[in-house]
């Protein structure tokens, strides 16, 4: 993974010192609430329902075991013993004390971590495919590019006061595993007809109040031109994006109002005018970064049969929670943070410590967080899988449900978040209780359930095969349900609302009725999303809301 040099280290340390001084001035009454707000947000510090919430950056989801141990320590000493992984592959703590945040940031800096730009109207953590570097279908590893962009975006003098937050995702495979089409900018490493690798550039995707799928504004951008082209996009947005209405300020609104073609013309014109004076590609610097992502020292192994003679429980886990690796004899292993008793994405300090130990033992000391709120060991020897499975079971991280209904994305909701309209964690619990039969889940197959406690869509509900959105009706929690959304694979789509929202107690039952329609209608081997696409939402609408089942 990327290792800091002196410049990186100095920057995070100076950032800590700066924030310590800002916090001191705030506590001494020298900085107003409003002025401090703008500053703390740039360091990931929100004031939430119960306490401040600190969001720590995990660049493109990559963590070393010593970083996990530091997160465990922070959870233990500064929080209530646990953290929560987010859909930007970051981790957040819900109970730190404001006056202790500078100390937390100082501890993070000792393990090359920070909370820079995890909030605020600036360029946020750059996310990537969680299978980067190990996926068999990869054109090129996106992570060196993520790091290159991360550095460029960090404290960028021109783009730190944008109209609104700005999210970039980079993938290197034809299969999109980073929801890149619902990002402000999605970058896909692709090969052109001459065999050169460059970027397909998408702009204007996003979720929130007005969900949109990104538009391709350039089919092939030479790699060397990445930063100058990004600067052109950001400059057009910075100058032309709306600042009068927070709900219309994302770049997707600008792209939509101008039309993608007109937006493209503006970017190309800006690029032509500015590319010569923009930061030039620095090949030596890029090579330095790239060397940090060289493959680990794999052993020469062959694929083996790891299933014979093993219990069915292990075989289930192998089928659901592991994936093919490009190197023979290795396998990718998901650690499910979606066990029935766990708020989705949560992890305790003891589990963090244990995961760090297991990473050292089985996966070159590295762990990844995924945008669907699980963890992953990228490089596990197949011969170690059984042993690792047993170890993961002991800490409740081996629930064999990756990709199934209960592997749901879920925001913290009203239990923690000051923005939410409704709870989401209790709904996750309700769903887990209703769908606790693994055979039933496996029969349903791959299905993505995504849930947000409000319109801001942190839980990506618009792109869930089934999406659940919490809404407030006269002080009561109701839930609107969409089907047919997708952010993965090659065909992103937005879900459609299937009918009136349902009360809290009815959510799991409603989901079950949706699933019953699927089970009756599906063709051999057809996934839920494909059935929805084939038959449309009408049959679901009619049967889910049949009079006998009429929601109150």
């Amino acid at each position: 993974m990327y290792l800091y040099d002196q410049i990186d280290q100095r920057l995070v340390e100076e950032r800590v010192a700066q924030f310590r001084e800002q916090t001191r001035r705030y506590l001494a009454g020298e900085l107003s609430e409003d002025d401090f707000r703008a500053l703390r947000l740039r360091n990931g510090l929100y004031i939430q329902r119960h306490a401040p919430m600190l969001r720590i950056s995990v660049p493109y989801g990559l963590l070393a075991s010593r970083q996990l141990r530091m997160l465990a320590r922070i959870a233990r000493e500064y929080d209530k013993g646990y953290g929560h992984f987010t859909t930007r592959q970051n981790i957040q703590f819900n109970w730190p004390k404001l006056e202790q945040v500078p100390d937390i940031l100082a501890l993070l800096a000792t393990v090359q971590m920070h909370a820079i730009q995890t909030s605020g109207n600036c360029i946020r953590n750059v996310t990537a495919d969680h299978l980067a570097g190990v996926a068999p279908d990869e054109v090129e590893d996106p992570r060196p590019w993520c790091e290159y962009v991360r550095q460029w975006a960090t404290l960028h003098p021109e783009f730190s006061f944008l109209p609104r937050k700005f999210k970039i995702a980079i993938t290197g495979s034809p299969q999109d595993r980073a929801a890149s089409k619902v990002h402000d900018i999605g970058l896909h490493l692709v090969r052109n007809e001459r065999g050169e690798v460059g970027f397909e550039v998408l702009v204007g995707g996003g979720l929130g109040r007005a969900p949109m799928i990104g538009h391709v504004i350039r089919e092939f951008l030479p790699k060397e031109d990445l930063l100058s082209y990004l600067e052109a996009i950001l400059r057009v947005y910075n100058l032309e994006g709306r600042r009068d209405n927070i709900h219309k300020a994302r770049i997707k609104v600008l792209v939509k109002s101008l039309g993608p073609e007109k937006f493209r013309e503006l970017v190309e014109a800006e690029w032509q005018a500015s590319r010569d004076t923009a930061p030039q590609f620095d090949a030596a610097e890029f090579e330095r970064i790239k060397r940090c992502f060289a493959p680990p020292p794999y052993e020469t192994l062959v694929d083996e049969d790891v299933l014979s003679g093993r219990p069915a429980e292990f075989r289930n886990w192998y089928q659901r929670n592991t994936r093919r690796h490009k190197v023979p004899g290795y396998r990718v292993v998901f650690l499910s943070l979606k066990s029935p008793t766990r708020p989705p994405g949560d992890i305790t300090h003891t589990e963090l410590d244990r995961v760090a130990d297991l990473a050292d033992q089985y996966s070159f000391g590295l762990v990844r967080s995924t945008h669907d709120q699980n963890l992953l060991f990228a490089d596990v020897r197949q011969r170690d899988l059984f042993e690792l499975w047993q170890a993961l079971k002991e800490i409740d991280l081996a629930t064999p449900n990756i990709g199934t209904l209960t592997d749901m994305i879920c925001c913290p909701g009203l239990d923690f978040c000051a923005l939410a309209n409704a709870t989401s964690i209790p709904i996750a619990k309700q769903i887990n209780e209703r769908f606790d039969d693994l055979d039933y889940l496996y029969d349903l197959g791959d299905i993505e359930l995504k849930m947000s406690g409000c319109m801001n869509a942190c839980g990506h509900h618009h792109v869930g095969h089934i999406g659940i959105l919490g809404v407030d009706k006269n002080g009561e929690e109701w839930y609107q349900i969409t089907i047919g959304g997708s952010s993965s694979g090659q065909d992103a789509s937005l879900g459609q609302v299937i009918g009136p929202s349902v009360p809290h107690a009815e959510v799991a039952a409603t989901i079950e009725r949706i699933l019953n329609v699927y089970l009756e209608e599906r063709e051999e081997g057809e996934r839920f999303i494909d059935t929805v696409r084939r038959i449309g939402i009408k049959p679901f609408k009619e049967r889910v809301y049949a009079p006998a089942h009429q929601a109150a």
Partner: protein
Amino acid sequence: MRRLIKQREIVVDEWRYADEDPQGRSRALILPFARWKAEREQWWLWDGRLGVRLGPTDPVAELEHDFLRISLVAIEFGSIGEGRGYSQAQILRRRFKFTGELRAVGYVQREQLFYLARCGFDAFELREGEDLEAALSAFDEFSVAYQPAVDLVVSPTRRHSLAQA
């Protein structure tokens, strides 16, 4: 007398905005962008120094051919979240190679100075109540940066120690 930070020093302002000096007695006058556009020809031969004040939506590109006459551009900031001025400054410095004074005006506070300076601003009228002395330290809060400073058009490497820049 208005005091401001210029080239990292606290100085008394030599310039007057047009509404502060309706008779044009000052020899260093800053005109609103719209007035400059409307009266460009008549000001061209005036014997003082001229500056132009840009609002966030004023099209900076329209100044491209005016720099023989304009030696100061003041850019307005309405709030800490106002970010258009940073891009206006980059266009002036990088694209048009503007070498005169580039001044940040309005709701400008110490936390912005580092970013503003790196975009090419060299003069800062801070908002009411800001401590100019204390604000001077903001320029040195970081000794390193990932982006080339605005005056380094072609950077030797992408990473920079500001101490060397």
